[in-house]
């Protein structure tokens, strides 16, 4: 069983890591951005395996041997396809990696101090995660009634893999996508039993990979100290850890949203081969749509925001070139989601089916709904996470901002995406058939957590790094900042 479990992980991780290596454009060595690639690969592992498992259930049925063979062949094919990029990265040396300005200013007492704080925070959060998981090993209510229940229906399907599953979908939230349930069911199918630890590990993987991705990407794009601060803020968000352990699909969605924005930012910071990172940005956006319905809104918003930013700065031709790479990653996932929604779960969620033109207009013109939802949104913005916006705002005022030209596009893109997502969520509250107060009570926290890691990522791209803020200002250091920023932007 352990060997099969390891095989289940290693097969997909090999594919996912190869794909994640595309997110570091140019001829960087395979070891560069290693933490970032590992965190990205962790989420991609579950994403890709859920797709292969779903496809196998459609065409091949429940045979475990068949699934293993198909995945082995797929793994070889994928590694073959990616081998030119991997070879290039294997032979590249770390000296090719441009040194960011802030990295040249380290060696300060601050970095060891932040590292120790990060270690304390990480081990405490990990302990808490384990305790919550021990108390409720099968997860909280939605995990038992939806995500893990669907995984059980898939894994226990026997000779008729999809029949009973389709009947299940007819009963409750039919069109919720399958990334999390299929990812868990695949693992269970591989080992031939249903270890309780599987959904716990999946939840843990997504929770801590989200934090790791934020830390490593901010460390690369800004500075190591800045990355550690971003990690501390995320670890200091109790709801992120608690909700991660509840085994809902919200944290996986946060992960894919953040991964997409990080990949766009890496593409913006690259001097060549930007298409690879844009491909990963499209792929991870597609996975967000395969995780929860809110991911479909994210796909629309992130592409729309990209169009606004790129067209206004570089023109339509540049946007067209970018879209070619993005769609290569995005379209296969959208086809899977579309097939699932049209053929497997043709029912729609109540939030869509219970809307009529007249009632929707009535709700849209009811000002009290705007007031109630607005008050709840603002209240949540002030309090979300213990550090919350208030502390971040104070920090911003004390430290200040510094935006390199290379980061300007990335920050604008992330800001517009997050802003439009908030507007989208707000409008769902206005037109919800369940009543605004019910929607606020049951989903506001979860909607915030979708965007919170991305907000933290954007915030730390925007503010000065500790190294920059502490460095004595001199014409020479300003000149150095400019020259290295020019290299990254070129």
């Amino acid at each position, binding site marked *: 069983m352990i060997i099969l479990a390891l095989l289940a992980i290693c097969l997909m991780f090999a594919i996912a890591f190869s794909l994640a290596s595309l997110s570091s454009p140019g001829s960087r060595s395979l070891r560069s951005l290693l933490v970032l690639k590992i965190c990205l690969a962790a989420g991609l592992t579950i994403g890709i395996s859920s797709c292969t498992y779903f496809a196998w259930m459609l065409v091949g049925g429940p045979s475990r041997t068949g699934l293993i063979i198909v995945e082995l062949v797929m793994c070889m094919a994928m590694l073959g396809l990616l081998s030119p990029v991997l070879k290039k990265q294997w032979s590249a040396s770390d000296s090719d990696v441009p040194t960011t300005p802030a990295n040249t200013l380290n060696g300060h007492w601050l970095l060891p101090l932040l590292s120790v704080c990060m270690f304390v925070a990480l081990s*405490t959060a990990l302990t*808490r995660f384990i305790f919550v998981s021990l108390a409720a090993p099968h997860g909280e209510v939605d995990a038992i009634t939806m995500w893990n229940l669907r995984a059980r229906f898939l894994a226990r399907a026997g000779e008729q893999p999809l029949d009973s599953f389709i009947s299940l979908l007819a009963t409750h939230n039919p069109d919720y996508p399958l990334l999390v349930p299929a990812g868990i069911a695949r693992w269970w199918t591989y080992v031939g039993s249903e270890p309780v630890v599987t959904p716990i590990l999946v939840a843990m993987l997504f929770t801590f990979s989200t934090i790791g991705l934020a830390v490593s990407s901010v460390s690369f794009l800004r500075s190591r100290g800045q990355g550690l601060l971003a990690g*501390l803020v995320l670890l200091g968000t109790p709801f992120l850890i608690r909700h991660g352990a509840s085994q809902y699909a919200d944290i996986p969605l946060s992960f894919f949203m953040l991964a997409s924005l990080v990949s766009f930012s890496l593409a913006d910071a690259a001097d060549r081969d930007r298409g690879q990172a844009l491909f990963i940005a499209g792929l991870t956006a597609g996975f967000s749509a395969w995780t929860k319905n809110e991911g479909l809104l994210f796909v629309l918003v992130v592409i729309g925001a990209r169009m606004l930013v790129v067209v206004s700065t570089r023109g339509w031709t540049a946007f067209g070139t970018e879209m070619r790479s993005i769609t290569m990653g995005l379209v296969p996932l959208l086809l899977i989601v579309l097939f699932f929604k049209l053929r497997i779960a043709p029912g729609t969620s109540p939030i869509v089916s219970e809307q009529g033109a007249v009632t929707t207009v009535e709700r849209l013109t009811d000002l009290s709904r705007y007031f109630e939802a607005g008050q709840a949104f603002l209240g949540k913005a002030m309090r979300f996470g213990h550090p919350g916006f208030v502390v971040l705002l104070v920090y911003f005022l004390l430290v200040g901002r510094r935006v390199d030209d290379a980061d300007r596009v990335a920050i604008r893109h992330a800001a517009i995406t997050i802003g439009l997502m908030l507007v989208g969520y707000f409008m769902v509250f206005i037109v919800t058939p369940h009543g605004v107060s019910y929607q606020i009570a049951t989903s506001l926290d979860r909607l915030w957590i979708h965007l919170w890691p991305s907000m933290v990522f954007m915030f730390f791209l925007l503010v000065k790094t500790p190294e920059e803020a502490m460095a004595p200002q001199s014409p020479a250091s300003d000149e150095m900042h400019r020259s290295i920023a020019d290299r990254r932007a070129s």
Partner: protein
Amino acid sequence: MPARVVLGIVLLVLVSLFSVIKLTNPTEKFAARFFGIIEVVPDVVTLSDLRFFALRPLLPQHGTVGYLTDRNMQGLEMLDEWLAVKYALAPLFVEKGPTAGIVVGDIRLPTTEVPKVLHDSNLVLLKDLGNGVLLLRRRAP
């Protein structure tokens, strides 16, 4: 080194550390966990999985089964138990009441009172798996 920068960093780090440490409620939970616990009780879903584990191979692979219990299924605690039953018996659909051909009994009354309950519900006992778990079928009309 500007004092305001140090202040900003210290503020951010302390608030983050405070909230992550508060997350564990160290004074209460730690003490309770290491000094107050005398027995480890599995959660309701794990208990339900264990109770119905032996029953699952005896049930059909697909379709719907009924669920009969002698307890009042109202209230939040019972809702948890009901969800746990449905979760344990997946991929079968579980309906409350003795409506389907095959019915899962979850009866914790003394053994002597079980025949009366079954007779009143028009059910026949197929197998008693112990711990209150019964495999039942509807009596032919």
